[in-house]
């Protein structure tokens, strides 16, 4: 059967997973029918599905990217509305993990669904072969497993399992939709228990718990070892179990011990711990319960972090453990497992067996090492997958230590021998296959990674904070390279060098990087240094230089497309405001947050925002509405919680693009830039009619209302007054025309006045020291 477009989706089961999956379908702009059972009591037969949507609208982090997305979810129940499945192109079953219930539902679905409509189960434990027992061949052709991770909006992994009868076209349609529309990275798993990520993850967690109990480690030290030093999120193991729910552990254990083959290593380590059983029984199930291995205790002094003593079983104040140091703390896995004492012993106990277990899953659970690595990176947020970690540890070293301990050495380790699982040949990343040969890591069509390009080429320009790369077809990419991709004079210098180069030799520019955060804005550390030595001239040069560089981009004779993902704040937002177009990842957290550090946007953000606001649809006429809208957003340092919300806040224009799959962002941005090349003319400089002093007074009145309500501090009033002055045009009269350059001058002058204020400096210092705004 050929691949069909998916225009409407049905999700059955409105629990956390089902509802979250439905929300992500809606986030893609696709209508979704969310069904659950009819509740036993109550008159509203759709209460469960409706309740799930209502709950999601209040959940943080939010499952929905916008309120508009929530309106795409149609709710119902499986008794009255199952026939609506005929309108859908994909049905996702996310009901309780009971084979009889799932099979019963499939029998009903078979009667109402159209032939060719894909049906997939979100099961995490039941083999596909069991699920389709009793179903027709036609049903089996349309059936597969799609295993999402929680929360479905934020976790990028989707494990797909197809059966022997699954139609390739049906599977391809689901995969394409999950990838392009829902933004998931698909990993193909075999029909084995726990698939890939949870199979390895559960094993790893169990090892970590066992070893900490056995070795008498504090939970803090355990997490400090099996956390960032291994490229694992700082929750480590105990923190992660708190997050997902301690009570989930026995279920996973039961399911895996019942279904894994008898010779699986997991059976040897699966065990319960009396303390954990007691915690579950008493409701200490983690963050959702009364507490977990960690908890926040409230007392008269405020909140205090506590941790449980694994030996005594009692809470005590949390400690800051003396974790790994030196190279062992910074990703040198060999140094970590060879650290003398309990740190090295624990690291080895967890890492050695986990990596060996993962290596043993090729080819039984996954076809190749890439699938295993992708699953753990995307499903558990590990910085490196098991095989990438083995490469850093040394396959031979790992095999040697396993052998010395009398443990079996997996086949993949033997195949690797002294080689690595990955290597780069002629700029192409390749992986080691079961056949002992290296094969290209093939990206799906439309996936372009700067990391791949960087392996194969040298930068066109490069300095300490930025680089320029040829990404093909006449397009170049500007990459920020500083810490948190912070922006400084070097970035501005490189922009000014890049403009003539692109003009003479290329067609378009994309501003992009592979990092989790597009840019945290101006380099505050550098700024603070200059402030402390009162180098006002240097600071003004930096402000003026940034204004010049950004306007240079805006008026360059070629299209400039911003391609942000993750955090893009302050100067990182302002550079986007100067682009001809934006192609944003759906997870975009952007805003002008300068007021939070006692400053105002200084790189042209004020004028660009007014321009966006006055062009916004439905913006009332007159000098005030656009200015007031910008003031409201910027004075409160509002940051979008998605790209969709960034449009509502006017950081993005209505016609700017949104890419759901992070891996497709660079490709999409490049295509957008190329589409603008023909007949491109730079924008004309805008002129403004601003409300002047009257508007300034009106904005200050609004701010005063906030202060009275206790929502703004005294110094907020000083900062917002400065912002109000710039946005209302300073001394300009209502009938004057204010040029873009006039506004830049006013912005710069006002910025320079604020930056000398001791309370602004205190805010900058506090932000650098704590990462949080100072409310002085």
């Amino acid at each position, binding site marked *: 059967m050929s691949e069909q477009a998916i225009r409407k989706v049905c999700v059955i089961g409105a629990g956390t997973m089902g509802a979250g999956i439905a929300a992500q379908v809606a986030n893609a702009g696709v209508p979704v029918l969310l069904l659950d059972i009819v509740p036993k009591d109550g008159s509203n037969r759709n209460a469960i599905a409706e309740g799930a949507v209502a709950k999601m609208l209040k959940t943080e982090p939010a499952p929905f990217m916008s309120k508009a997305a929530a309106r795409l979810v149609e709710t119902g129940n499986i008794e009255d509305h199952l026939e609506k499945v005929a309108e859908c192109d994909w049905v996702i079953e996310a009901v309780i993990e009971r084979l009889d219930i799932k099979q019963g539902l499939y029998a009903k679905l078979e009667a109402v669904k159209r032939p060719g409509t894909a049906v997939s189960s979100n099961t995490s434990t039941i083999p596909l072969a069991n699920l389709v027992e009793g179903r027709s061949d036609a049903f089996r052709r349309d059936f597969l497993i799609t295993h999402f991770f929680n929360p479905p909006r934020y976790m990028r992994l989707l494990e797909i399992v197809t059966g022997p009868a699954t139609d390739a076209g049906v599977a391809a349609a689901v995969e394409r939709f999950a990838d392009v529309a829902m933004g998931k990275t698909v990993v193909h798993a075999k029909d084995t228990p726990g698939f890939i990520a949870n199979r390895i993850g559960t094993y790893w967690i169990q090892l970590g718990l066992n070893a900490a109990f056995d070795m008498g480690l504090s939970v803090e030290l355990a997490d400090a070892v099996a956390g960032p030093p291994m490229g694992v999120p700082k929750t480590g193991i105990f923190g992660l179990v708190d997050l997902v729910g301690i009570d989930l552990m026995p279920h996973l254990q039961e399911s895996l011990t019942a279904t894994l083959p008898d010779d699986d290593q997991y059976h040897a380590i699966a065990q319960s711990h009396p303390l954990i059983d007691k915690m579950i029984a008493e409701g200490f199930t983690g963050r959702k319960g009364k507490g977990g291995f960690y908890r926040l205790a409230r007392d008269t002094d405020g909140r205090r972090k506590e941790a449980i003593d694994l030996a005594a079983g009692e809470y005590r104040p949390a400690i800051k453990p003396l974790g790994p140091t030196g190279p062992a703390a910074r990703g040198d896995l060999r140094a970590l497992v060879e650290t003398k004492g309990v740190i090295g012993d624990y690291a080895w106990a967890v890492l050695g067996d986990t990596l060996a277990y993962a290596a043993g899953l090729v080819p039984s659970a996954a076809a190749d090492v890439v699938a295993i690595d992708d699953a753990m990176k995307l499903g558990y947020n590990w910085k490196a997958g098991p095989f990438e970690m083995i490469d850093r540890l040394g396959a031979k070293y790992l095999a040697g230590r396993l052998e010395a301990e009398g443990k079996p050495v997996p086949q993949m380790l033997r195949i690797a021998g002294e080689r690595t699982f990955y290597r780069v040949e002629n700029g192409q990343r390749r992986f080691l296959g079961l056949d002992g040969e290296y094969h290209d890591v093939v990206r799906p069509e439309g996936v372009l990674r700067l990391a791949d390009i960087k392996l194969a080429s040298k930068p066109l320009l490069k300095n300490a904070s930025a680089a320029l790369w040829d990404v093909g077809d006449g397009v170049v990419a500007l990459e920020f390279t500083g810490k948190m991709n912070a922006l400084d004079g070097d970035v501005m210098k490189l922009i000014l060098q890049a403009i003539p180069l692109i003009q003479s030799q290329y067609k378009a520019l994309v501003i992009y990087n592979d990092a989790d955060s597009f840019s945290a804005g101006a380099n505050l550390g550098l700024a603070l240094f200059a402030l402390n030595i009162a180098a006002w001239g240097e600071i003004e040069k930096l402000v003026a230089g940034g204004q010049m560089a950004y306007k240079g981009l805006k008026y360059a004779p070629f299209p400039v497309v911003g391609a942000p993902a993750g955090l893009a704040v302050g100067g990182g937002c302002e550079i986007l405001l100067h682009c001809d177009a934006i192609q944003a990842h759906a997870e975009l957290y952007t805003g002008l947050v300068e007021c939070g550090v006692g400053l105002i946007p200084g790189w042209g953000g004020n004028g660009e925002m007014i321009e966006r606001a006055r062009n916004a649809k439905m913006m*009332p006429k007159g000098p005030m509405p656009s200015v007031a809208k910008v003031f409201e957003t910027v004075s409160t340092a509002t940051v979008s919680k998605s790209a969709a919300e960034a449009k509502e806040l006017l950081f993005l224009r209505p016609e700017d693009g949104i890419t759901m799959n992070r891996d497709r962002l660079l490709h999409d941005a490049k295509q957008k830039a190329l589409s603008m090349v023909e007949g491109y003319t730079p924008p004309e400089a805008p002129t403004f009619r601003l409300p002047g002093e*009257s508007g*300034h007074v009106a904005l200050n*009145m609004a701010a005063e209302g906030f202060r*009275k309500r206790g929502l703004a501090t005294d110094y907020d009033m000083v900062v917002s007054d400065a912002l109000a002055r710039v946005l209302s045009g300073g001394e300009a009269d209502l009938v004057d025309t204010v040029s873009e350059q006039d506004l830049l001058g006013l912005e710069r002058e006002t910025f320079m006045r604020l930056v000398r204020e001791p309370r602004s400096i205190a805010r900058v210092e506090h932000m650098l020291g704590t990462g949080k705004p100072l409310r002085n």
Partner: protein
Amino acid sequence: MQSVVIAGYARSPFHLAGKGALARVRPDDLAAQVIRGLIGKTGVDPADVEDLIVGCAFPEGEQGLNVARLIGLLADLPLSVGGMTVNRFCGSSMSAVQIAMGQIAVGAGDVFICAGVESMSRVPMMGFNPLPNPELAKKSAVYMGMGETAENVAEKYQIGRADQEALAVESQKRAAAARAAGKLADEIVPIETRGGTVSEDGTIRPDTTADALAGLKPAFDAKGSVTAGTSSPLTDGASAVLVATEDYARKHNLPILARIKSVSISGCAPETMGLGPIEASRKAMERAGITAADLDVVELNEAFASQALACIKDIGLDPAKTNIDGGAIAIGHPLGATGARIVGKAASLLKREGGRYALATQCIGGGQGIATILEAVE
């Protein structure tokens, strides 16, 4: 002077701005439906109407362009009927009534439709382009937010939070009881909307308790006593009364509700604008030759519980006779529409409850009060 009477009263249901059932209804359409309803229930011949006077506090956007004329055309009034928009903020449509009375007095017409409208969903308070005079802002509190003035009144009159909440609970209770007894149905003109017909108020909260109100955060001043529960809500609504000479009303068998006995307007300090009704009521009562003790019915707009309590105390009103069917805290306060509502309501109550004199009075942002004394017609 000719006797001038209120010969009909109608209003739309009142709904919360933004999220209420009238948020998607244009204010000109809303007012036009109310005027058609008034004409229908009074039976007045529209061709006799001299002028349509519409009060509106923020006459811009969909309320702009002399919206009174537009409303007249939307309501299919004859082309011969005039149209004038009046702005005295919250006192706008009471001013419309007073202007009609003056026009009748100078012999410039027999019948007027005096209406008011405000869509606080669609035209924001302060308007789209607030541009205060910087010099005036320095020397006067005239631009002060209304909530802050309510705090000032609470402070000046030492009105505690519990007293304000008690008034709010009573207002909600009375409005809910009146609605349950069908006492509001007569005055309400059902409004056709894209979402269906809306025929009941959406503002009343019958379950309001003192305990629930006590849990609210101050709405305007973190250290203050005024909350959303003791303030009138932002509201969408329209209202209209028919003002005519008594001779005309009798000749055409119009339903006479009450005679307008006296009127007044009075300025006061902007920072305590909620006290406006005190002097305005005193003047109107003096002109009518009565005292507060002579009043049988009072409609005192509850912009805020604090200012309503201050006015009740200072004027010497009987709380039992004040806002018998609940006040604006429960019913809502669509700025420009409130004046015609409370004049029409006071006139209707005088007829329903019996008695001789009624007072309708309200405070006005910027520092004013307005009052109208009505007298029963035998």
